[in-house]
């Protein structure tokens, strides 16, 4: 029987550096000092089924960055969503990585029908960028402060 994924779980995704490192806008202001990913960081390649992510229950943000040899000091960051708060039209499917131990929490955000620009835009607006402190400190299975606190 395949493993189920709970709506109470959180999923995370690597976000490439934004300003000032390479000056492209993959992160923007959300609310107060909270930031979010932009749509450009959450697009699918032609023919791709879903957006690669990881379950915080099994993969920590720091591990997620380390999988590809990067860290927050390189300007990389991590976006997070609570599954129950994903925009309408999306689901999360567990998709083991190859090899499986590369990313034990690998999953995909998939469209129920089509990954429209509306869904992509809403997914970006629903995201939150983890603070550097959270990226460094959250362990697999931890529950982050939710909803995120703004100042």
């Amino acid at each position, binding site marked *: 029987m395949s493993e189920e994924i709970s709506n109470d779980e959180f999923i995370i995704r690597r976000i*490439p550096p934004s300003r000032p490192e390479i000056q492209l*806008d993959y992160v923007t202001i959300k609310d107060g000092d909270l930031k979010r990913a*932009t*749509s450009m*960081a959450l697009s699918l390649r032609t023919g*791709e089924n879903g957006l690669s992510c990881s379950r915080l229950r099994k993969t920590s943000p720091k591990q997620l960055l380390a999988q590809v040899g990067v860290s927050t000091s390189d300007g990389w960051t991590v976006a997070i969503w609570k599954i129950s708060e994903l925009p309408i039209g999306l689901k999360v499917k567990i998709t083991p990585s190859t090899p499986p131990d590369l990313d034990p929490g690998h999953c995909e955000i998939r469209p129920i029908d089509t990954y429209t620009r509306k869904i992509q835009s809403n997914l970006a607006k629903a995201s939150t960028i983890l603070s550097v402190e959270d990226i460094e400190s959250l362990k697999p299975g931890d529950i982050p402060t939710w909803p995120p606190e703004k100042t």
Partner: protein
Amino acid sequence: MSNKIPETFYGYQNPISPSVTESRSPGLIRRREPPTWFHLATEKLQAAATLQDNWDSYGALRTNSLSLHHAYLFLDCICRTVGVSEPLIAVNANGNVCFEFEQNSTLELEVLPSGKVVYYFVDRNGAEEEGEIQSPFKDVLDRLTKF
């Protein structure tokens, strides 16, 4: 999908609306000086040109040079003809340059290698529109070069 830009395309001003150019004195087109963010925006496009395959670590494609070319033209056009605020600029997973304008409304644009621009627009009341425009800046450039 619509192929006509709505009047409220940017929420506050549609750069390609006839009203933008026709309101000027007959026979005289005054090109605006580029806004202060123009230089930064061109630097972003230069940065986009340096992206290599897998820049997002999930298999994204490097920046498409044709998309980049059209993005430069589009940027130059909107900078000089419309008083828009600084857009967010980045490349998507297909290697196409994208612009995102957000004030009270949201406008997201993807510049395709063909020169078409695909847009998603949400106005301040939440009304949405998706569409595709062929050569979105051609009308504006034509008007400018006829004088």
